[in-house]
């Protein structure tokens, strides 16, 4: 009951956005459906006549159908960029198979003695098609359109990944933020939409053969009308922002940008996977990202200084079991050796080598230690075993590789690594349950994801690096018997990013600069 009420409250609070997303969702679905009908129907009719081409066309459409939706959207981006065009194209490709196949099945399924007698009475091929074949095939064709509609309503949620809007903005934001109300606020309307559109089409389908001629008129008009709901987000200002669904819903994200900086620029929602590239290709101007992401370097982006400190610090530090430390006290000094050696841009560079230059984390870590004179050849490793864990991304792989070489070079301990333990929760649970001894964690994650600090606490800490570190250190020791060692030095926090060239030409270095440019800069151009 509580859940329902708060969902209701959430939907009421966000009704503007909800309405906008629903309209965009209907629009996306219907535009792509309309195009799929306009292209799929003639194609289906054509292959019903050219049985030799049928297997080829159906085969191609079938293969398109089997491409996972995320992958298909991914293919679209290099070709069509981000936004409505690639989303509609991908949806259109998904809708194509059921429409072509059912048109083909419907037309070839018409009783040949009926079409033959139509021709025998002197109807032209066109008249036979329009007055006999299409009306008789219409129930089957409509069934195909229904299938396509339901598929499209579902896949359209993914449009949120590439800045095309729709209810996916809530759904993916909710998933990223672990906010059930937000997920439901997107998922329920999208499910209702699928049911509603399916129901409307089933009404058309049930009008019976007798009125099929009217259906062929009503359907396109209906689709056209629904399509017009989609108003492509217009970038009215000079700068377009593209933020992940997660960032959009966070106080230490978009909401903070609005409340603390009063930043107000046109914004689209987009997946982390394509955001950096989109910024590089000038589809977006401002994005939200992680400050040590290798793609910063790959796409020549710079981070804007968070001069009002809305993004909590995410300083990386080894998080280790107190028992382990007690048993092997020599570990502490070894693990803290990295401290002060890696700043943001160095970490970005190391990530870049792995993510973009495709070097192995082992190689990158090894070369780094040699460069810094930290490397020592392994000792005998017979004093015991240390288990190191990592989350599933390059930065963590590199770090634990460095720790492995440091431990084995400076102590008689042997190291086993358990890489790719998924997200925070899996790593943390593994550590707490004594399945690993240590993994690198970020102060902000400890604060927000594990300790789940409330707003009051956050305000008190005020995004201060030392205060946050001291707080998580104390609390982890108290609550979980885990020890935070000295931070390495880089801060992998949220940051706003821009293309280096654009930021320099506009003289934007801080978020406040950006805000000033966005509100006052109208007259510059």
């Amino acid at each position, binding site marked *: 009951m509580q859940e329902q009420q708060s969902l209701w409250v959430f939907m009421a609070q966000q009704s503007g956005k909800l309405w906008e997303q629903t309209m965009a969702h209907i629009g996306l679905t219907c535009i792509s459906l309309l195009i799929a009908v306009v292209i799929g129907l003639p194609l289906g009719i054509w292959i019903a006549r050219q049985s030799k081409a049928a297997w080829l066309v159906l085969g191609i459409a079938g293969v398109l159908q089997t491409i996972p939706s995320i992958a298909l959207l991914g293919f679209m981006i290099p070709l069509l960029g981000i936004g409505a065009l690639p989303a509609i194209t991908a949806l259109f490709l998904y809708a194509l198979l059921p429409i072509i196949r059912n048109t083909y099945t419907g037309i070839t399924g018409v*009783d040949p*003695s*009926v079409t*033959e*007698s*139509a*021709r*025998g*009475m*002197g*109807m*032209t091929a066109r*008249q036979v098609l329009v*007055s*006999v074949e299409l*009306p*008789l095939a219409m129930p089957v064709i409509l069934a195909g359109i229904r299938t396509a509609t339901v598929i499209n309503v579902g896949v359209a949620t993914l449009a949120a990944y590439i800045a095309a809007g729709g209810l996916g903005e809530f759904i993916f934001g909710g998933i990223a933020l672990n906010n059930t109300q937000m997920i439901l606020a997107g998922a329920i309307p999208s499910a209702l939409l699928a049911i509603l559109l399916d129901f409307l089409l089933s009404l058309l389908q049930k009008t019976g*053969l*007798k009125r*099929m*001629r009217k259906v062929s008129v009503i359907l396109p008009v209906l689709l056209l009308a629904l399509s017009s709901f989609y108003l492509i987000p217009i970038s009215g200002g000079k700068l377009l922002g593209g933020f992940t669904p997660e960032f959009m819903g966070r106080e230490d994200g978009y909401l903070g940008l609005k409340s603390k900086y009063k930043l107000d620029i046109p914004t689209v929602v987009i997946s982390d996977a394509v955001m950096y590239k989109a910024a590089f290709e000038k589809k977006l101007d401002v994005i939200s990202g992680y400050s040590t992401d290798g793609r910063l370097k790959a796409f020549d982006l710079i981070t804007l200084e968070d001069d009002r400190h809305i993004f909590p610090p995410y300083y990386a530090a080894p998080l280790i079991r107190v028992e382990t430390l007690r048993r092997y006290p020599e570990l502490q000094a070894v693990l803290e050796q990295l401290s002060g050696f890696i700043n943001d841009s160095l970490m970005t560079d190391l990530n870049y080598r792995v993510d973009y230059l495709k070097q192995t984390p082992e190689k990158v870590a090894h070369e780094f230690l040699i460069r810094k004179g930290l490397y020592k050849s392994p000792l005998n490793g017979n004093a015991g075993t240390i288990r190191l864990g990592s989350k599933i991304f390059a930065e963590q792989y590199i770090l634990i590789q460095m720790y492995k070489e440091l431990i084995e070079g400076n102590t008689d301990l042997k190291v086993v690594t358990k890489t790719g333990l998924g997200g925070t929760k899996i790593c943390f649970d593994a550590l707490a349950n004594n399945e690993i001894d240590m993994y690198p964690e970020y102060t902000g994650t400890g604060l927000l994801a594990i300790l789940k600090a409330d707003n009051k606490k956050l305000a008190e800490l005020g995004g201060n690096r030392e205060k946050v570190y001291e707080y998580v250190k104390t609390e982890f020791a108290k609550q979980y018997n885990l020890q935070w060692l000295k931070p390495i030095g880089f801060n992998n926090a949220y940051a706003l990013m821009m293309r280096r060239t654009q930021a320099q030409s506009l003289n934007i270095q801080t978020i406040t600069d950006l805000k000033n440019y966005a509100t006052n800069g109208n007259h510059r151009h």
Partner: protein
Amino acid sequence: MIVADQISKHFNGVQAVKNISFEVKEGETMVLLGTSGCGKTTTLKMLNRLIEATSGSIYINGKSIFEENPELLRRTIGYVSQNNGLFPHFTVAENIAVVPKLLGWSAQNVADQTEKLLNRLKLPPSEFLKKYPDELSGGQKQRVAVARALIADPPVLLMDEPFGALDPVTRAGVRKEFAQLPELKKKTVVLVTHDVQEALELGDRICLMDKGEIVQQGSAKDLLFNPANDFVRSFFDEQRFFLELKNILLRDVWNALPNSKTTSKYNLAPENNLLDALEILSMNELDELTVQNGDEIKTINIAAIHQGYGRTRQNS
């Protein structure tokens, strides 16, 4: 009216129809008879170009059909296809109106003609106009299909097994009605069937086909009593006696019958056949009955039937 000269049809190397020729005179009903797969349908459809002949020439009313636009040609030829081919999404009225619409008739004209034709076919318009094909019985569907082919009053009518889908009892009834339709009297009809009795009953002339060729063409009598070869003979063997009796008219044996002064209770006409006479004699346990041709009255009995049957068979 229809002349087919040396027409053939190959389907990817398979010769379905081999160099056949025939002629159908105006007002005549010609039947294409033969077992399934012998090429009847193919032959019929070549006449309205639903199938294009591979070679040969076809003239309708003196004009080569290959020089005409196929759609316009077909609008002047009534066509009843094998499984009636009614449009399931059209009402009876709409089905019948297909050709008139193509020809641009006024709605009023279509309505008037439809009503007239439906009445003639014993399908009361008030009841049937708005019905859909799936609400009709087999016999009713068949009659609507015939009405649809006849509505524009085409001089030529092509029918492919028009009664094939009906049960035997319905078939006999519909066939009889059909034979008596005044609309059909002046039409040139080509009718396809595999039913011997139907062929003999409806055909002025019969083309017996086998393996894509015409084995023999002529009247029912020619085929029964003067078979060109063993195939033709054996084709009718199963019902031979019955068919032969049916195809000897009382007129044919007229001269051999003794005169009579008065008519009896059962009085036949010269157009009746020996089977009719035999049937009435047997059913009513009579010794004889009379036949009347104008003022002339003759008697006929079992012996006369014997004699007539025997003589006809010998003569041929």
